[in-house]
């Protein structure tokens, strides 16, 4: 961590200033100012490690990049990573620790919506700013949280028309059995009906289910034009494996709102994975100059250990950190409310995933959305939709008018 001479002078002045204000804080070496604590909570082990590991790598990369540029407000960023091992109780424990013990300036984390809903109330109760950088089912309206991932109005709303145009109207939904799977299935149903099609049935599977034999037979019996999957986690990958093993890939194509978020496309053989279509606000194969530059630096730094970024989740974590950093620079402080007001003043960044703008009313982001197909362990981008606003959350949430709102709205659709 090299600090240029000019910054050293500035830091010294700041350090001197803060010493007078609160002597107790001066634990660090006299030269470097007190580091800003940033906490990352992502599953590095357990069934969700396929999402967590790339996200942690990107967050580390973003913090190193920021520190290399002199940190924020002249202070270095200290990143603390916790691994909840895909166990919700550890999520609450680490969120409490981040808020009460580490006194973090911001927490980036939570992969499944279950873990987000577990730590959101805690971080709100202990007044710690929270960034949730994963695509999810939308509708969270809470001034203390910023959701930088895409929501159904952005990804499902592009995926379903593609399916209905190329494969047929009627679909069969298979989804993970928790709030993400349940609510996303409702959005899929909404858009399928708007496209003139019908959802033949929706089956929900707990995260630890690995035997999909009976389900595959039921799907065949229903004879859908396509299967839309909102399955999540390592265990559910065996659905795609068993689907290919039953030789159905040629008969009934699959579209998914989650496939690609982790390294699924690498784990499955091309025979099992190719042809699966998904829609996200970023794929590693998106060819923009910024993305190419980012990937070069990323692979240069991590070399062989650099994980495959797949779709959105890892990149949104990188962008989420930079959005927060931009907010701190504008606020010239790390105080929660000041940073929130700065973030609500309309921040827009050019990122490897295209232009990302923070919407003040919903704390969600307007992003480019891509529809892509799995091809030989990677993705082939098929369609691009620039600057899609988070319409679903915007229709129900206005934090400017109701700043104390603390609720997750659900779309009112019966499957």
């Amino acid at each position: 961590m090299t600090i240029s001479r000019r910054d050293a002078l500035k830091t010294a002045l700041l350090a001197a200033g803060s010493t007078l204000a609160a002597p107790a804080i001066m634990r660090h070496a006299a030269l470097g100012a007190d580091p800003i604590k940033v906490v990352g909570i992502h599953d590095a082990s357990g069934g969700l490690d396929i999402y967590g590991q790339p996200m942690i790598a990107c967050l580390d990369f973003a913090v190193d990049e920021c520190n290399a540029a002199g940190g924020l407000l002249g202070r270095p960023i200290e990143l603390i990573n916790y691994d909840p091992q895909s166990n919700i109780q550890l999520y609450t424990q680490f969120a409490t620790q981040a808020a009460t013990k580490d006194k973090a300036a911001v927490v980036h984390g939570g992969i499944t919506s279950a873990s987000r809903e577990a730590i959101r109330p805690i971080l709100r109760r202990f007044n710690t700013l929270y960034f949730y950088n994963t695509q999810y089912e939308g509708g969270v309206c809470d001034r203390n949280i910023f959701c930088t991932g895409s929501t159904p109005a952005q990804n499902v709303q592009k995926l379903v028309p593609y399916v209905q145009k190329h494969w047929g109207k009627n679909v069969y939904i298979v989804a993970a059995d928790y709030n993400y799977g349940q609510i996303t299935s409702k959005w899929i149903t909404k858009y399928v009906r708007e496209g003139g099609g019908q959802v033949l049935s929706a089956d929900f599977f707990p995260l630890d289910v690995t035997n999909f034999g009976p389900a595959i037979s039921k799907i065949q019996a229903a004879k859908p034009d396509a299967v839309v999957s909102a399955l999540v986690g390592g265990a559910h990958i065996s659905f795609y494996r068993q689907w290919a093993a039953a030789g159905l890939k040629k008969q009934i194509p699959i579209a998914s709102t989650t496939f690609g978020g982790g390294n699924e496309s690498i784990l499955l053989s091309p025979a099992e994975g190719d042809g699966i279509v998904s829609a996200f606000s970023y794929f590693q194969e998106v060819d923009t100059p910024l993305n190419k530059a980012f990937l070069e630096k990323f692979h240069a730094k991590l070399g062989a250990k650099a994980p495959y970024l797949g779709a959105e989740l890892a990149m949104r974590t990188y962008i989420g950190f930079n959005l927060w950093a931009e907010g701190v620079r504008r606020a010239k402080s790390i105080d929660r409310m000041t940073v929130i007001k700065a973030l609500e003043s309309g921040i827009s960044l050019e990122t490897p995933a295209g232009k990302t703008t923070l919407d003040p009313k919903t704390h969600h982001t307007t992003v480019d959305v891509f529809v892509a197909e799995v091809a030989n362990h990677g993705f082939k981008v098929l369609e691009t939709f620039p600057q899609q606003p988070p319409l679903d959350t915007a229709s129900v949430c206005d934090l400017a008018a109701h700043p104390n709102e603390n609720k997750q709205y659900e779309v009112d659709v019966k499957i």
Partner: protein
Amino acid sequence: MDYAVVVALQIVSGVATLVIVSLGLAVVFGMMRVINLAHGEFLMLGGYTAILSYGHGINLWLSILLLPPIAVGLIGAVVERLLIRRLYGRMIDTMLATWGLSLAFIGGVTMLFGNSVTGISAPFGSFAVGRFHVAGYDLFLVAASVVMSLVIWVVLKFTPAGLIARGTMQNAEMAAALGVAPDRVYAMTFAAGAALSGLAGGLIAPVSGVLPTMGTAYIAKAFITVITGGAAMLTGTLVASGLLGTVSTVFTFLTTPVFGEVALLAVAILLLRLLPRGITGRFLRRAL
């Protein structure tokens, strides 16, 4: 009509999976009365052996059918000598020790192979039943379960080793009096049970993803099947698997996989309540 055939096939493969998963425990718990809570982890170790050997280019059939039983059998022998040997007759201590063993295996494998889900794509492709497609591997599992059961039946019934093992389990002192070394028989039987579990792990690896905690999904079902089966080790396990496997798959078709599992557990409780000593405690008492 062909949908009914497919459903029937699913039921049979559900029963077969339950048989395969429970046979190893039937030997260890059914015969030796050793409560082995690490049975699920023996399965997991079999799965990893299959994946690693297949990954290093060894022929699929060797890596599924041959290597897992050998590897896990050896591990079983070592475990029996170091740990289980001291605990014969102390049921609760065996339970705690094998629970510790299962945690240690999960932790060790996580450190060695990381935690991501790996798997083998199932061989045999698929075949059509009317307009339905069914994975060929399911039928292979059914065949495997039949062969495993037959082999155990033949070994126990007709070979001297089987007779000695059964005798020693029932009365170790008398067996010793007849010149049999009970310690060696216990070691061999436990290793055989572990080998069966390893084979089961190898067989189900292509169907379900292999990860360090995969054992926990099977430990409860295997135990309940063996206990509901009752005293006659082999017949009991087969009958219980047939009953519980069918119920669970039928309910999975009617409702969701979760209620399939719940139905299996509920029927097990009902059976235990009506037949306190298991199915073969009442019927088929003279069976093996």
